[in-house]
């Protein structure tokens, strides 16, 4: 019966099938194999594609299904990433996302860019110049001043010799090469993972006095800049621990999750803000309250080490993952105004430097080899 359908109707149906299913169905028959590579079909398909959520835990990448429906909210693992070509395990220690591309660092410090939608991968070679280059971070971004072609770049931040601050290198997809650049301005420590929005990367950072700031790296000008927080940060206070984590809300806004633990009073608070309007490169950030979590209301032990979260603006909820150090467990929670529910718990394997991560991305057709974007249709959000 299916084979009797006119081609355009077959395309209409297949363009509504999720990307992960389509990849698996390439071997069904030659017609489908060819169709799933056809640019016209892909444009239609990616235009309908829903955002995907993946999680990095214990060096493994999982695809997740997140269901936010009040008390019945759940998070389910729907698949685990495997390398099909080689039988070697794909062990990943860090991921950063930009435009549907994932920049992954493997546990043996190799770097690879992956488009989960098209399945393309590209290994990026780099050299470590000295054994002191610890705590290196990679983020993926692009020069957003050229509207017709995104020019993708990777920023590598690393500590050189111990007493000097961060050093930087940039890799351009077009030139296939790294070059160093110097910038003393950050003069702060990157507290959170970098989050890339509209090509530029943002960090929650603290300066030498312990005052918090939002740091932005502009991939077009290749310069760092400081932006406003939604609160006044007073710097170090004895017996108080403050942490901040950033998250991208769709591809338009930034969200900040702030936690403050008062060790003396054994109290904690969690607040989440979202930027007001879509991120505009030159201007400063303005924030709105999104959620205040009263931990006493829910009578839970404090959440610790929240490294990653995702925001659902419509439902006014967040999905958070953290690690319980004492029990060696990774946990996912769903948090809203009236809900605080642990929805997943598992033993954390590997070193504690590998915190669990939650990443949301919209499938895209970006080709990694040239870093070109095929102009796509309108995205359903």
């Amino acid at each position, binding site marked *: 019966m299916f*084979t009797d359908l006119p081609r355009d109707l077959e395309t209409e149906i297949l363009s509504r099938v999720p990307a992960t299913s389509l990849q698996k169905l390439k*071997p069904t028959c030659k017609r489908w194999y060819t169709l799933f590579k056809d640019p016209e079909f892909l444009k239609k398909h990616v235009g309908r594609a829903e955002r995907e959520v993946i999680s990095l835990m214990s060096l493994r990448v999982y695809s997740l299904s997140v269901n936010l429906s009040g008390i019945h909210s759940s998070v389910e693992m729907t698949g685990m990433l495997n390398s099909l070509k080689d039988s070697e395990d794909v062990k990943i220690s860090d991921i950063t996302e930009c435009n549907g591309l994932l920049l992954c660092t493997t546990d043996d410090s190799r770097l690879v860019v992956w488009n989960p939608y098209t*399945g393309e991968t590209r290994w990026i070679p780099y050299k470590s110049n000295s054994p002191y280059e610890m705590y290196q971070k990679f983020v993926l971004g692009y020069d957003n001043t050229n509207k017709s072609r995104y020019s993708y770049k990777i920023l590598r931040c690393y500590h050189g010799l111990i007493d000097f601050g961060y050093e930087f290198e940039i890799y351009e997809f077009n030139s296939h090469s790294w070059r160093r650049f110097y910038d003393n301005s950050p003069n702060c420590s990157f507290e959170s993972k970098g989050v890339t929005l509209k090509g530029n990367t943002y960090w929650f950072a603290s300066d030498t006095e312990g005052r918090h700031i939002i740091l932005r790296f502009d991939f077009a000008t290749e310069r760092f800049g400081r932006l406003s927080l939604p609160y006044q940060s007073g710097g170090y206070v004895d017996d108080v621990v403050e942490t901040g984590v950033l998250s991208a809300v769709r591809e338009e806004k930034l969200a900040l999750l702030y936690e403050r633990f008062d060790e003396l009073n054994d109290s904690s608070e969690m607040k989440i803000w979202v930027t007001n309007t879509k991120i505009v490169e030159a201007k400063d950030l303005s924030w709105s309250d999104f959620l205040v979590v009263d931990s006493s209301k829910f009578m839970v032990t404090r959440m610790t080490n929240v490294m990653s979260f995702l925001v659902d603006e419509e439902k006014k909820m967040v999905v958070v993952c953290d690690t319980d150090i004492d029990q060696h467990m990774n946990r996912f929670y769903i948090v809203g105004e009236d809900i605080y529910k642990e929805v997943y718990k598992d033993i954390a394997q590997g070193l504690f430097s590998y915190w669990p991560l939650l990443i949301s991305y919209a499938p895209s057709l970006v080709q990694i080899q040239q870093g070109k974007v095929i102009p796509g249709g309108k995205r359903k959000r």
Partner: protein
Amino acid sequence: MSSKMIVLMSSDGQSFEVEEAVAIQSQTIAHMVEDDCVADGIPLANVESKILVKVIEYCKKYHVDEANPISEEDLNKWDEKFMDLEQSTIFELILAANYLNIKSLFDLTCQTVADMIKGKTPEEIRSTFNIENDFTPEEEEAVRKENQWAFE
């Protein structure tokens, strides 16, 4: 309240009287009404009676007004029951919704089949939809390995 009726005629010669307001959810029929060529009834050469009955049932349910108030949640539940049909009927409905240009029915029927496809293996797809495998075993293996990384 006047409810203007029009007559729809299936390909196998059956006639169905339907409120015009209900029928014009089909863009195809709406254009014919505008062009004022519906006096003798509208012949639908591509839709047989068995399917037309279901289309009319759908359009009646989706003609929401004060007389027929219904929530989105209830409509979704109704959709599920409505689409509990044999595979061949679903495909006929897709063709009818396309010909009659009823967007919501078209979306519903296509999504139903897409949901049937989701999560199945190529083997299951071939047997469910009677699709022939024209790959050799070697070709099929090569295709499977094309993407280096995949979620399993």
